[in-house]
């Protein structure tokens, strides 16, 4: 039983990271039809930037600050302005290919410009065990879950409780109508890109002490975010959230109880069955059909 509880907590911690990445992915898809295949690299990069700062002699807090600002500017604003905007009119697939190329570019630049090797990353939470209901649980896993949940609840409150948030959501659901209604659509789209960058930033700082900062870290996270977004319906923040946690949980439970060798396949196969039974995704709405 305590093993089960430990696995649940570890699975939720992994899932929280996936969920953060998947929510940003979904937001960006909703407002601008961008399938961001570089999403994983977005989660990898902030930690690398922090280390570039500390290696250049900055104090840790300053490195975090500089890295965060630089990242949000480059991969929130810059990504939208210089890649998505010019590409958008050419359709979904070319833009997706462009983000694929961007992911290789970011990954290789991090490798050549910084290091091919994993680097230790300063942890915001100490190692240690907490005893809950007789099970020894990792303090850091719990902290990851808590921080991620706070970030997600904050986002949800922003979207539902503030005027800007609701406007953004309307834009996300139907940019064309929003434009007709006089909503500053471009600004709202930019906002989703900035939020995406911030979520990636949070995920990066949470996960890097455990995974270690490395140029290739984005590969598995980006894939998991993509899958979580699909399973969640591709157009639902709550779907992405559920998808992220589900993948993290199934992955950990599979490794422990089913098969380590087929670990990566089991969540996928389970989710394929879900998709085939419910083609609009876990919590998704049906997409309208173009006739």
């Amino acid at each position, binding site marked *: 039983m305590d093993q089960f509880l430990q696995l649940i907590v570890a699975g939720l911690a992994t899932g929280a990271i996936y969920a953060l990445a998947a929510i940003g992915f979904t937001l960006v898809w909703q407002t601008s039809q961008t*399938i961001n295949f570089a999403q994983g690299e977005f989660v990898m990069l902030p930690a690398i930037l922090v280390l570039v700062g500390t290696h250049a002699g900055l104090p840790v807090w300053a490195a975090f600050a500089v890295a965060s600002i630089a990242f949000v500017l480059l991969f929130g604003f810059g990504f939208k302005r210089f890649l998505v905007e*010019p*590409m958008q*009119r*050419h*359709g*979904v*697939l*070319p833009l*997706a*290919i*462009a983000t*694929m*190329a*961007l992911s*290789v*570019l970011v990954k*290789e*630049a991090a490798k050549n410009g910084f290091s091919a090797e994993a680097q230790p990353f300063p942890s915001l939470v100490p190692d240690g065990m907490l005893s809950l209901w007789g099970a020894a649980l990792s303090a850091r896993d719990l902290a990851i879950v808590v921080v991620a949940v706070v970030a997600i609840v904050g986002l949800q409150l922003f*979207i*539902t409780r503030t*005027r800007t948030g*609701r*406007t953004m*959501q*309307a834009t996300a*659901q*139907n940019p*064309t*109508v*929003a434009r*007709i*209604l006089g909503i500053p659509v471009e600004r709202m789209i930019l906002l989703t890109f900035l939020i995406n960058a911030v979520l990636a930033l949070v995920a990066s700082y949470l996960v890097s002490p455990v995974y270690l900062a490395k140029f290739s870290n984005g590969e598995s996270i980006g894939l998991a975010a993509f*899958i979580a977004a*699909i*399973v969640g319906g*591709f*157009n*639902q*923040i*709550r779907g992405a959230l559920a998808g992220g946690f589900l993948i993290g949980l199934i992955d950990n439970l599979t490794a422990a109880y089913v098969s380590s*060798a*087929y670990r*990566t*396949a089991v969540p*996928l*196969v389970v*989710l*394929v069955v879900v*998709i*085939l039974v419910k*083609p*609009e*995704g876990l919590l998704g*709405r*049906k997409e*309208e*059909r*173009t*006739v």
Partner: protein
Amino acid sequence: MIRRPDANLLILLAAFPVLWFLPAGLKSYGLYVVSLWLVMSIAAMGLNLTLGYAGLTSLAQGAFLGIGAYATAILTTKAGWPLPAAFLASSGLSFAVGVLLGFPALRVKHHYLAFVTLAFTVVVFLVARNEQWLTGGVFGIANIPRPVLFGSDLGAALPFYRLLLCVTLVLALAMWWLLRSPWGRAFLALRENPLRAASLGIDIRAYTLLAFAIGSAYGGAAGSLYAPLVEFIDPAPFALSASFVLLLTVVAGGAGSFFGPFVGAFFSYMLPELLRATGGWYLIIYAAVVLVIVMISPTGLLGLIERWRDHRSQTRAAAARAAATPTLGAEAGGSESDSLRKGATP
């Protein structure tokens, strides 16, 4: 493209002698790279049929490459089959698996289809890695023989390249014929508008399956040639990333245009080799080149204009429809429950 099919045929027939004689001066490395280009062009041709003509986003072409490569490797090294027989069996197997995988394609579309095929690719990779009794597992299969045809050994780099060239020509001609036939037109109709295609009496189910299966068979055929080309296979070249690269190949080359796969395979498989001279930076340069190409020259990449027109007309239709929906009018910020309600009413 379809309107001027004979130009395609002429180019194909004119390119053949050029490609037959041009690389004769190359050393084995150059020949290997050009051979790899041909093999990957075949795989991309298959994906171009599924994606570019039938409009099905598949992330399984790398897996079919693997199925073909493993089938050939196992049949030639363990069962002692000659390569031509193994080639036919591998392509046939891929066709059959393609039909099976095509069934989900009837239920889901777009990113869901991408996801189903992605899961399939992961499963194929893991089977190749874990089932050591069959596939050699992580240790792979070594010493895959090159063919001896009509008593002459085609194992050396140049004869093997020319054999690949002949196979590529035959498969390209078959594809050309297929696209000109009523089937090819049906595939196109399927991509442009499935509902209208159905109302015109096209059996969507049969044609979707067929598009998938033929595309897969080309993937398997490519894999069957890849195995003797490299003479060693392990699971690594058939991982998910291979399917992504093939997708990139087809799109960068121009999805839905006849020569797109050849152009795309040049970018994906030859360009990195040509950039080797730049040392550690070659992947960065390669990625930057792809990015720039995709960004600044949508027209230069064959077939992109057409997709853009599709997308624009779709957006316009969506806008017209959405404007007619009154639910969003009263309140500027539609909440999530709002969107769920909207989803419930079709």
